[in-house]
């Protein structure tokens, strides 16, 4: 089955690719699947970015771009949100990093179920195609907001309420099915296929983050799945799960007695864990990068693992903080405000521990490290503004204003995308055997980091003045000071500049694949197992030799008395050597 030496038998490797077709397209190798996820997610992400330009042009220069009418504006708002949260961030952080890192970091030859893993990508691609198809059907894609709140999303008066919403729901259902296939693999692989010596408490934090996020996703996506199927029935079969008796535009609608809040509960029961599904892998990736590039062990590893677990557990008891003003029973507000603010404690632990990892390090400001510092900053700001919104009573003035927009962009938009960039710059040499251009990478970082700050910092204050989100135009709002309109123009110009910087990134990415400087096997001198494998790793990851045996935790950087400032996880300890068990390598 596999090509490595006889006697070491393991079947956790898909069939050896024999043709171009099975090597690059219908491939069961986790590394190829990870790259397929990456390319698809980056492509839809680019679509999402272009949609945000449409929004920004309208907000900065209202009425001057006639192709952005209210319908198109709301479609852009909705699709931008949905694409970024689900089809870019979730797909990239779990699909790409999950696939690339889990087997390599744990010393496995592949995922537990390579065939199901391959199916996962193809179902994801199908869901992306269905989503993109909704742009070309009559009426266009849905414009009901990424939260898809019924009843408006399925009724006239909202763009895309005839076909767009149907395709949106079908696409989400497909995404969830595809993700479940991948998620089964990630969890099973982490639990079963760790190499000898790789105990759970020796796993790199990136794997911990992806592992816990996947468990959250497996528990949270079913709620969205059920919500989507029910809304599909409401839309297509005339049932009344979410739609009460309604008179719209003078017409009595054929529905009765449903509850719009029921959908909101199902949506946010998924939607809040979704935030952590995105941010936990990002936190893991950042932990790796900070330790490697500061040449310093991660501070408080057990506490870091514990905080991931606590955040994961708490994420299921805070969902209704998205619904403080929704008309649900107001007494829930007390409970959910307390649970929500408690989440700040494990999150603060993570920030403190990253910062203490930097302290007295030997910090190499490489491109990935710069992005990691950018992550610390944006995640911190986004987390702190969360304390405003989570504290139930303050949500009343701030909910549905630009303060919320700025908050979630900082904490899970910019922070997560910056972690993705950090990860790409960091692991690019592992995947291709070449380095990305550092100068271009640094320009990309500075424009992106300073730019996103210039976009979202003012947005908090626009929100304080009371400007509501999802307004096509607020010229007729008298309480909005004139200076806010100038500020909007400024934000739009910066957003376009930041967008242009992403083109530089795309150029750097493509150019470096073919012409980048050769990286060698371990360019960052990292201690984790993925750098022990040949670069680029062959099918089966470890070649003809058995997978490495692990003797130590993943962060032995700058160990006193050592000549080098890192010790790979597979280097035996003195005890292991003296016990004569030095094998493995």
């Amino acid at each position: 089955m596999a090509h490595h030496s006889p006697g070491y038998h393991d079947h956790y490797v898909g069939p050896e690719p024999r043709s171009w077709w099975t090597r690059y397209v219908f491939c069961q190798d986790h590394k190829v699947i990870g790259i397929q996820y990456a390319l698809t997610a980056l492509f839809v992400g680019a679509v999402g970015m272009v949609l945000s330009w449409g929004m920004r042009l309208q907000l900065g220069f209202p009425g001057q771009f006639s192709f952005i009418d209210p319908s198109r504006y709301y479609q852009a708002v909705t699709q931008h949100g949905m694409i970024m949260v689900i089809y870019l961030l979730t797909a990239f952080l779990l699909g790409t990093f999950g696939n690339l890192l889990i087997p390599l970091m744990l010393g496995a030859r592949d995922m537990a179920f390579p065939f199901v893993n391959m199916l996962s990508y193809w179902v994801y691609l199908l869901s992306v195609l269905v989503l993109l198809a909704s742009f070309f059907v009559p009426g266009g894609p849905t414009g009901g907001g990424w939260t898809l709140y019924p009843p408006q999303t399925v009724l006239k008066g909202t763009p895309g309420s005839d076909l767009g919403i149907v395709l949106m729901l079908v696409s989400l259902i497909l995404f969830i099915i595809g993700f479940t296939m991948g998620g089964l693999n990630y969890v099973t692989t982490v639990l079963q296929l760790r190499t000898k010596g790789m105990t759970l408490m020796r796993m790199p934090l990136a794997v911990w983050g992806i592992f816990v996020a996947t468990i959250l996703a497996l528990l949270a996506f079913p709620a969205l799945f059920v919500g989507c199927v029910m809304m599909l029935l409401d839309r297509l079969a005339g049932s009344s799960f979410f739609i009460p008796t309604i008179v719209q535009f003078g017409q009595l609608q054929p529905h009765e007695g449903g509850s719009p809040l029921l959908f909101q509960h199902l949506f946010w029961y998924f939607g809040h864990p979704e935030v952590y599904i995105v941010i936990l892998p990002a936190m893991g990736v950042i932990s790796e990068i900070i330790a490697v590039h500061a040449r310093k062990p991660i501070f408080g590893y057990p506490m870091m693992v514990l905080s991931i677990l606590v955040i994961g557990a708490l994420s299921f008891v805070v969902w209704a903080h998205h619904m403080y003003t929704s008309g649900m029973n107001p007494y829930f507000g007390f409970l959910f405000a307390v649970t929500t603010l408690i989440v700040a404690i494990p999150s603060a632990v993570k920030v403190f521990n990253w910062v203490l990892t930097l302290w007295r390090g030997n910090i190499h400001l490489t491109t990935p490290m710069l992005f990691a510092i950018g992550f610390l900053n944006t995640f911190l700001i986004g987390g702190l503004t969360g304390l405003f919104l989570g504290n139930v009573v303050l949500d009343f003035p701030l909910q549905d204003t630009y303060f919320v927009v700025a908050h979630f962009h900082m904490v899970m938009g910019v922070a997560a995308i910056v972690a993705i960039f950090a990860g790409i710059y960091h692991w690019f040499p592992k995947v291709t055997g070449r380095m990305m251009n550092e100068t271009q990478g640094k320009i990309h970082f500075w424009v992106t980091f300073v730019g996103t700050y210039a976009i979202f910092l003012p947005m908090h204050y626009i929100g304080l003045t009371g400007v509501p989100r999802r307004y096509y135009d607020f010229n007729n709002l008298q309480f909005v000071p004139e200076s806010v309109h100038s500020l909007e123009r400024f934000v739009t110009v910066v957003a376009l500049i930041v967008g242009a910087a992403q083109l530089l990134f795309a150029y750097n990415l493509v150019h470096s694949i073919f012409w980048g400087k050769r990286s060698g096997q371990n360019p960052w001198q990292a201690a984790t197992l993925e750098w022990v494998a040949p670069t680029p790793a062959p099918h089966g990851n470890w070649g003809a030799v058995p997978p490495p045996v692990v003797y130590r935790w993943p962060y032995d950087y700058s160990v006193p008395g050592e000549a080098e400032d890192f010790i790979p996880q597979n280097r035996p300890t003195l005890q292991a050597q003296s016990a004569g068990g030095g094998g493995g390598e």
Partner: protein
Amino acid sequence: MQALAVALTLVAMIVATIFLTVAKVWWFAPLASNWGSLDTLIVITFAVTGLALVGVNLFIAYSVYYHRAQKGRKALFFVDNPRLEWGLIAATTVGIVVLLGPGLYYYAQLIRPPQNHMVVEVLTQQWLWSYRYPGKDGILGPASIKRFTPANQFGLDTQAQASQDDVPVLGGPLTLPVGQPVLLRMRSNDVLHSFYVPQFRVKWDIVPGMVTELWFTPTKTGEFQVICAELCGVGHYSMVGKVVVMEPQAFQKWLSERPTVAQIFGPSPKAQR
């Protein structure tokens, strides 16, 4: 050089944030209701979170600059310090308690209207704000969406005794007496909407099939705008209505000049017979 740039950028960001917050260049619209406590709590929250923001960012800036990579230097092998970690956890907990305490206290007030409130019904539809005042008897007559007709958009039971002196105001404006606590009972004919007057600070969603409630006391006379704060279709951004707060006598005069249900639909047949 780069380390210095990172450190200075972080400092510049702190300075910009503090400036924007302290200078109040863009800040809340002037308060016109009893919810000044929320403005205070926002300031407290800015102070507590600002402390964390400044502290952590300065520490990052310091570390990035002073502990930048140098030849021959080795990082400190510093893996754990439970006392430090638990200390930081305790500090975070204190910060959260400081925020949550007053937050929950004010929230308890926000969801419990005072005894002497007056009731006004809010009715929303795409994309229009309408209101109904209970009239002299202080009771809103029964209403149901099932009775909707173009002439009777509120779905009023025009026969009921309690409805007779109700004052429906289709399309607004919402007129309120200053200094009088008002409880809004809100219904929607079609989709989700949200009642939001920035100067009053509070907002609450309006859900079809339900009645939601919101209370506040207007404290300033003048004209304001009520805007919809929940995406409600393509006309969402144009769903802006007028709110007028006037002296109580002027309000009574205004109300008495509006036609009642009996005047609009004619007296109920029961009363005629």
